[in-house]
C-alpha cells in the first residue's frame, strides 16, 4: 500500500550544505531499502522561525516528497529524531488531498466543456466562452 507523504524538516542554520546532502542521501537510501521512493527534494532555504526551537531563531527548511508505507514514515521519523542537527520535523499525508483535487479539477473541466459545447452552438460564441471561464 503506497502512500504519498510530505516530510518537512528544519535543520539548524549552521549545518553545512554537504552534511545536509549527506543526511538527505541517507534518508533516501532508507526509503529505497524499505520499498519506498523519494519523489522530490525541495530546499526552502534559511528562514526565520515563528518561535524559538531549541534556542534557534532561524532554520533551514527542507521538504521531501516521499512515496511509501506507514512503516517507512515511522522509520524516517525515528531517524530524524536521533539526528542531532534536525530541530523539527512534520510529516503530512498528501495522496488523499491530491485525489480530492483531481476530482474537483475533473468536475470543473467537465463543466467547462459542457458550457463550451453549449456556447458552440451559436458559432462564434465558442471563442468567447473559454475566455470568460479562464
Amino acid at each position, binding site marked *: 500500500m503506497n502512500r504519498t507523504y510530505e516530510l*518537512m524538516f*528544519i535543520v539548524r542554520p549552521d549545518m553545512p550544505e554537504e552534511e545536509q546532502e549527506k543526511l538527505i542521501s541517507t534518508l533516501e537510501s532508507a526509503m529505497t531499502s524499505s520499498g519506498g521512493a523519494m519523489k522530490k527534494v525541495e530546499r*526552502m532555504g534559511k*528562514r*526565520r*522561525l*515563528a*518561535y524559538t*526551537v531549541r534556542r534557534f531563531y532561524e*532554520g533551514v*527548511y527542507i*521538504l521531501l516528497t516521499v512515496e511509501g508505507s506507514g512503516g517507512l514514515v515511522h522509520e524516517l521519523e525515528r531517524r530524524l529524531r536521533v539526528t542531532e542537527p534536525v530541530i*523539527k*520535523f*512534520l510529516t*503530512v499525508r498528501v495522496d488523499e*488531498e491530491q485525489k480530492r*483535487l483531481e476530482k*474537483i*479539477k475533473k468536475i470543473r473541466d467537465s463543466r467547462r466543456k459542457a458550457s463550451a459545447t453549449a456556447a458552440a452552438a451559436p458559432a462564434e460564441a465558442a471563442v468567447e466562452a473559454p475566455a470568460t471561464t479562464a
Partner: protein
Amino acid sequence: MADEIKTEAAPAPERTERSGGGERSGGGERGGGGRGPRPGGSGGGREGGRKFFRRKKVCKFCVEKIDSIDYKDYRTLGQFVAESGKIVPRRLTGVCTPHQRRLSTAIKLARNIALLPFAGRAS
C-alpha cells in the same frame, strides 16, 4: 453579469456600516491580546485587507478558486491569523465553512513546523 454590478454598487453604503463593526473587533482584540505595544504599520494594512474581504462577504478561496489550502503557504495563511496568532473567525473574514475547516487545519500544521506562531507575533 448583473450580480457583479450589484456587488460593485453595494459596498458604498455598506462601508460606513461595517467600519463600526471593525472598530468593535479591534477593541476585542486589544482586550484579548494585551501583550506590549503592537507593531502597527503592516499589521494594520493587513487588517484593512481583511476588512475589505469582510465587506464583500465572500470567501477568498471560493472567489480565487484556490482548492488546496496548503500549510506551506504561510503568506496566505497569515491573512487569516490575528496579531495575537489566533485564527480569525469566519464571521470576520467571510470564509465559507468548508474552506475555514481546511484553513484551520493548515494553520495548525504551519504552527507545528514554526511557519506561524502559536501565540504572539513572529519575532
